[in-house]
């Protein structure tokens, strides 16, 4: 650069510097984003349960979850004469759960099978993401009282049950949720005078077809015992809206509450033993 050129550049810079005050105490906008955007929370299963098995998902603090579920006793194979089971009789379950925190929900559910009244709690222990895989961990447990078994001799002292489940849920990609639930059940068979202990492993899966629809299935590995010779399974279709889950399913059990379901079922999992059922849950805010 020549001396003349340097002089020109220097002069321009001086002009620039000198001109700035003439424009006032001007400076560019100083605002900069001060907080990062909120990250979407981890979601694996959208609902708090598949057919019967709980997921690690919990309702939020101040939310209510109201449930009405039915399992029709006649089988699908009974055909049109029994309206494919819809004529009944039917076993039902009514439930109400409350979100005490965003991670702890407490519920009271009643099944009219043995008048099983179950007080339960579920804690979402943790969740995270690792690449395309999301996971969620939870613990659930409850105590059940079976007030409808008093007619059997000697059972007055054996109407209480208790259960606990560990819940491991994993989401693969955007649309396949899987669950493994090691479980323990105290007193699976009310007809026994001396309570037994039952260990089980629940398996659950759900494939999300769209934002609102999905297919689900579950299976509970349990030990064979009298009147509960078979393992319980279910599969069905789920529709979710902003405040509801609607599930329609086929299953080989009518035992709805956890202390009933975890112990097994008297019905084999075969097409001639499939029974219709549905779950409807409604979410509300206190």
């Amino acid at each position, binding site marked *: *650069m*020549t001396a*003349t*050129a340097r002089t*020109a*550049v220097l002069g*321009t*810079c001086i*002009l*620039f510097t000198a001109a*700035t005050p003439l*424009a*006032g105490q*001007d*400076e*560019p*906008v*100083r*605002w900069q*984003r*001060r*907080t990062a*955007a*909120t*990250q*979407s*929370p981890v*979601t694996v299963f*959208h609902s708090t349960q598949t057919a019967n098995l709980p997921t690690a998902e919990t*309702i*939020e603090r*101040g*939310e209510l979850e109201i449930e009405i579920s039915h399992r029709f006793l006649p089988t699908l194979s009974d055909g049109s004469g029994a309206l494919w089971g819809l004529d009944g009789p039917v076993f039902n379950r009514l439930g109400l759960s409350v979100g005490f925190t*965003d991670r702890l929900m407490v519920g009271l559910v009643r099944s009219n099978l043995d008048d099983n009244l179950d007080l339960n709690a579920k804690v979402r222990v943790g969740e995270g993401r690792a690449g395309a895989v999301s996971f969620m961990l939870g613990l659930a447990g409850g105590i059940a009282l079976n007030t409808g078994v008093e007619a059997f001799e000697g059972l007055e002292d054996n109407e209480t049950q208790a259960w606990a489940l560990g819940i491991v849920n994993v989401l693969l990609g955007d649309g396949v949720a899987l669950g493994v639930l090691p479980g323990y059940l105290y007193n699976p068979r009310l007809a026994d005078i001396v309570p037994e202990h039952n260990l089980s492993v629940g398996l659950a899966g759900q494939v999300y077809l769209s*934002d*609102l629809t999905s297919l689900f299935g579950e299976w509970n590995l349990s030990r064979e015992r009298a009147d509960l010779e078979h393992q319980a399974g279910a599969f069905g279709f789920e*529709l*979710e*809206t*902003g*405040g509801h889950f609607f599930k329609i399913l086929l299953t080989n059990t009518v035992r709805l509450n956890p202390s009933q379901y975890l112990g097994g079922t008297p019905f084999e999992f075969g097409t001639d033993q499939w029974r219709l059922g549905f779950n409807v849950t409604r*979410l*509300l*805010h206190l």
Partner: protein
Amino acid sequence: MNLRSVFSRAVHLLLAGAPAMALPVGAQEYQVNLEANRLVRFVSQTTLDEFEGVTDQVDGYVLLDSERLSQDTGRGHTELYFEVDLGSLETGIGLRNRHMRANYLETDRYPYAVYSGELKGVSVTETGFSVTARGTLSIHGIDRPAEVPCRVSPVQDGYRVTCAFQVLLSDYDIEIPKVMFLKLANDIDLDVDFMVRPAGGSE
């Protein structure tokens, strides 16, 4: 490099920097006061259902062409920019929050609703000012021109700003599934309430 090209480059640099650096005399930037109450609320009302979503995650600035707001504000250069963190919207039901984030607003791709523009029309009222902002509202990756009326009242060294307006979800390519159409309205009422204070104040 000859003298002409050197001088030309220097002038070019000077002029290119000028618009960003030089603002009118007395211009004042105000920023959203993060220590004060802030509220952004939307209301969806249909025959079957009504619900609202709220967040306090609104931030941004307004640049006035004067130190304080007056009926003469807006005759010079003004700027405003506000953004709302859509992922923080809370409707009271977790499932509905998730649907809103994932299905409708797609907040992973479009985390903010942004309004940017300028002030047009300031009039004095009994409690402060009535202000009209003219600019662009960006939601879900779609930009739409939007004129927003606001009330502005002096508070200490800044102002309280309250605005109410309506947006149509269909204007922003937010599709309402048929199964939901009776529960989620297309026309959404929006209320915004926050305070601004001079930039560089205690934060």
